Every structure is written in C-alpha cells, then in structure tokens.
C-alpha cells in the first residue's frame, strides 16, 4: 500500500487529525499562533456537513463546544495564551460535568498578551491547575507535526472514553513549522465513537462514582433526559450537599484518570539504557534535547532522554524509576521552571537541574549541550 505522505504545518496537522477522529464541531475565537486551526477547519468542516463557529470570545467558544458535546458532538476548540486563560471557567465546567472535548493550546509567551508570535512552554502548570478546585486533567505535548496529527486523534478518543476535557499543548514552533506527515487511513487508527448508553432511558444515570467504570454520556435529544449542573451533583446529576456524595464525586474526578493512568500515559525513551545524565523534555524542547544528547555522546558523555507525551497526569512512576538509576537529571523548558518541580517530586535522591530559556527563542541544542557538559563535571 502506498503511504499518503504530505508536507504540513503543525496547526494543519491538528485540523487534519480532528477530521480523521470524526470531529463534528469547532467553535473558537482567533488568536495567534493558533488561528490556522480555526481557518483550516472553517473550510474542512462545512465540506463534510459539520459545524464551524466563530464565537464572540473564548468563553463563548468553549461554551458552544460543551453545548454541542452534550448533544453528542465530538467537539474541539483552539486557542493560545490569553484565550486559554478565558477558557478556564469552562474547562472546570467540563471537568465537573464530565463533558468530553478537546482543547488545543498552541503556547505563546506570557503572561498577559506576552509574546503573540513567539514560542514558550509557560502553560503546562496552567493546564493542570488553571481552573479553580481539584480535578484531574489529561494534557498531551506532541513534539512534531506528525505527532500533532496522531495525538489529536488520541485526544478525541481519551475525551470520549474518560468523559473529560483533553488539552493538547503544542507551541508556536510546532504549530507553525512544516514537516512530513503520514496521513493514516481511517481504518488504520483506533477511533472511539460517541454511543448511546447500554441501558434504557429509565435506568440511565448520567454519572457513576463507585463502579470504577465511566458511564457513557448520553447525547441529549435521544430520549435520555437528564440534568447537567456545575454544582456538585450525585449520580443522578442533581445537585447535592450530602457529605458522602460530595466526597465520592470529588474522588471520582481524580480516580477515573489516575486509576487508568496505564491507559492514558504515553512517553518515549531515548538512549537511557546506559545514561549517566537524564534529560526530561517535552514538546519542541525535546527536539533540541535529542540533538544535544547526540552531541554529548560523541564527546563521550552518556546522556539520554525521557519524553512525556502525556504530560498530565504526570508520569510519576517512570520518572521515579529512572531516577533510581540515573543520578543527574536535567529539565530544559521554555519557562521559568514548571515541570522541573514534578521531576523533583519524583526524583529519588537524584540531583535535578533546570535550563530555562524565556527569551522568545527556542532552546538550542548548543545551550543544552553546554548545560550537560557542566552537569557532567559535578
């Protein structure tokens, strides 16, 4: 079979992945460097009879996405920086009401309007903690254009399966660069579809906190009448202030993600077997890290990399296992130090170093290599 290979931009690959995943609905508000996702879907979705909406702001965009998702749509929105900040209330609503959706964040420099056209990785902690209250989240950090396509498909699958918002964090570099992409045939990739619940309407509860299984979300308008509220609710969906219901509901929002971490986690290991120095790097920074590791190895320094692809939930187990063997860990990030704290939390007695560049420029292989050399001497 001949492969369908195309040269694509990262944001285009996200749009392409969304369509392959069966995306029905996009609502957004323009913002650099994510706008191409909207522009491309504004042409692709109508052509296949689906809905594209440009809303009055990002809050409205995610509101519309959640309304459509409650109707059974596979829905997506895309934004950056200030727009992602505006979406936080509805990210919380989606978490609380367990509404599947995919949110693309093409990261740019912040805070505030920050650096509209330049890359950063400053939103990884916001992805986890941006909205108020405790909740789990799934966030994915692709590091190439090709991976952007496949991870968008996976994001839709995880959203439907776990009834949760799934964030994809790319950045201006990956969003705007062009690379080779192998476009899959729909039949060659796993696609999880929205289904009616396996029980008749009179037996349907929209939530289940105790069986350990995620109840499918019945598309509204198909005979399953239920109530959705951002107030803490019991399994019937109606608000409750009973302490045991509150506790169960809160536990469930964490458990459904953390107890299924094996299914959700995804990572890559690069030359770690004999490594003396471990790099933990994600997104575009992992690309420079890979090159820096090659430079270090040709100079006789054994470095390797652990690259989380699913960044939330954080791969605690892998990092702590690796840190038992490898005593020096370097975390390069295009921020002032965010994921480094997750690594430190899991580092079993290893020394953890950061390399933080927030100049609007990508971290170069040379910068990382210099840091590796410095660490190797300690």
């Amino acid at each position, binding site marked *: 079979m001949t492969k369908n290979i195309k040269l694509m931009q990262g944001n285009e690959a996200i749009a392409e992945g969304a369509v392959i995943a069966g995306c*029905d*609905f996009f*609502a957004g508000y323009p913002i650099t460097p994510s706008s191409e996702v909207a522009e491309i879907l504004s042409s692709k979705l*109508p*052509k*296949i*009879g689906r*809905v594209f*909406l440009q*809303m*009055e*702001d990002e*809050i*409205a*965009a*995610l*509101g*519309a*996405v*959640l*309304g*459509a*998702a*409650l*109707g*059974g*749509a596979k*829905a997506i929105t895309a934004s950056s920086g200030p727009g992602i900040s505006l979406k936080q*209330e*509805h990210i919380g*609503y989606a978490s609380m009401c367990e509404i599947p959706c995919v949110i693309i964040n093409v990261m740019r420099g912040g805070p505030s309007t920050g650096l509209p056209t330049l890359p950063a990785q400053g939103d990884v902690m916001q992805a986890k903690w941006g909205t108020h209250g405790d909740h789990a989240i799934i966030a994915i950090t692709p590091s190439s254009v090709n991976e952007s396509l496949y991870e968008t498909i996976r994001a839709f699958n995880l959203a439907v399966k776990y009834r949760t918002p799934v964030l994809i964090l790319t950045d201006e570099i990956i969003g705007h660069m062009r690379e080779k992409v192998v476009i899959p045939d729909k039949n060659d990739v796993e696609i999880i579809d929205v289904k009616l619940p396996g029980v008749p309407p009179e037996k349907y509860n929209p939530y289940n906190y105790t069986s350990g299984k995620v109840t499918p979300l019945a598309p*509204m*308008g*198909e*005979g399953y*009448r*239920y*109530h*959705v*509220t*951002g*107030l803490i609710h019991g399994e019937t969906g*109606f*608000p409750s202030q009973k302490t045991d219901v509150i506790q169960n509901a809160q536990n469930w929002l964490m458990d459904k993600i953390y107890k299924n971490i094996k299914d959700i986690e995804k990572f890559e290991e690069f030359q770690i077997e004999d490594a003396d120095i471990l790099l933990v790097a994600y997104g575009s920074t992992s690309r420079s890290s890979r090159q820096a590791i090659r430079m270090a190895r040709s100079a006789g320094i054994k470095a390797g990399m652990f690259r989380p692809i699913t960044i939330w939930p954080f791969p605690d187990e892998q990092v702590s296992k690796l840190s038992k063997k490898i005593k020096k860990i370097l975390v390069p990030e295009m921020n002032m130090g965010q994921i480094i704290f997750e690594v430190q939390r899991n580092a079993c007695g290893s020394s953890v170093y950061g390399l933080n560049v927030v100049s609007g420029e990508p971290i170069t292989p040379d910068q990382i290599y210099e840091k590796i050399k410095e660490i190797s001497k300690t």
Partner: protein
Amino acid sequence: MIKTKFDYNKYLRKNTLPHIWCPGCGDGIILKALLRAIDKSGYSKDEVVITSGIGCASRLPGYVDFNTIHTTHGRALTFAIGIKMYKPRLKVITISGDGDALAIGGNHFIHAARRNIDLTLIVFNNYTYGMTGGQYSPTQPLDSYSTTTPFGNIEPPFDVCNLAQAAGATWVGRSTSYHAVQLEKFMVDALNHTGFSVLDVITNCHISYGRRNKMKSPVEMIKYQKEKAVPARSAENMTPEDLAGRFKTGILFEKKDMPEFCGEYYKKLETIKIK
C-alpha cells in the same frame, strides 16, 4: 366549556422539590407559565433543551423534566447555540436572570441577537442579583437601593427589550409575573417564532430587592407590577412624563421571515458539500 386543570406533574421532577425559591418569589409563576406554554406549543419533552446560567432564576431547569443544562454565570446562551447548531431539530430555551443575561452575559446576549439564531431567551428580570443577596444589577432602576448602592443607584438601567431589538432579535416582548395568563400567551408566541426571541419578564424579588425599596412583601411587589405595567398600545398616547418609572408590556417587536442563523448555516452547507 369545562376547563380542565393543567397537570404540572407531567413536567415536574418531583424528586427535586422543594425548590430553593423563597416563599412569594415570582420565579415559580414564570415556571408554571413556561410549562403551560411548552405544553400548548406541542413540543415533546425529549426535543426540548433548557439551558440556564447562574442565579435564582437559573435554578429552574433542575425542576423540569426536559434535557436541562444549568451552565455557568452568564454563558447559558453559548451552550444553547452549541447544541442548537449541532442538533437543529431541538427546541432550545434559555433561562437567565437580569444579571446573568445582561451583565456577565451581555456580550453573548447581543451576539445571539445579532445572529438571529432560533432560540428563546426568557429573562427573569427582578432588578437585582437575587441569589447573591441583592447587589445592584444592570436593570436596577435609578435611585433605588441595594446592598452595593447603599446611597442610591446612579447607573442608568438597560431596557432589555430595546437592547434586544437594537441588537437584532426578531421577536421581543415583555410581561410580568403578575400577568400570568398574558405571560403564557407571550411564551407560546415566542416559542413558535423562528429566530431569536427575547421575553423580558418583570418578576419580584421581595427578599433581595423589595425590602430595600419599600416593597417588603410579595403583595407590594405584585402590586408594583400591576400598576407600573403599561400595555404598549396605551403607551403610544402617553407623554414621557406619564411613562416615567413605568414599563411597556406586550409584544413590542416582531419581524417574521428574517434570515435565521441555524437555518442559513445548513442552507449554506448544501451549496458547498462535497458529495
């Protein structure tokens, strides 16, 4: 003619009662009118979606047996637009308080009107932030008092209907929780309209608004609604001085056969779909 009593139980989720509303609150009257209107319009429970924001009024969807979404403060229209655009066959109604619809949700309000999307918005206009204890709202009359205008309000209020019409809504009406029969009639009319319909319902919150404004009982507030309401036709012959402190009721604006957003979108798709 034998008048059969309307069976509200057909639509109430009895296990969610008692409701949270204070005794004497106007919201229950509007709820009952809405159930009668939906029944008259002939929609099935399965095809009705009700979205609401946050506030006393916005608690309504929890009590009624439709597809119900109690969303975030001010954003109910955005959810309504999402589900309507995805499933145009559904009848989508949005319930909002005055603060919900016009302060935090003001942007969504004017844009839904501009699009003329086929939704019905019912504003429970009690001139106050009832749920949070009576802070001033964007419809609170000048010189009235609230927990955050202890010296009297100096901000001019919005006229919900003028705003809706100016922004592009194609059905605009006003009634009150006193005029329960008229209210039901207007609701039926709004529900049958294709396009964005806005019904402003003046309702009473004697707890958070009335008792700070010399109307501490529901009776006084209902009297206020009765006395201050001016049918649109009578208003035509009245001077601005006569109308001061009063409000017009009636179907204030209606324009049929205007391009409706959801219909236009799907019409457009027909012209571009790749077969």
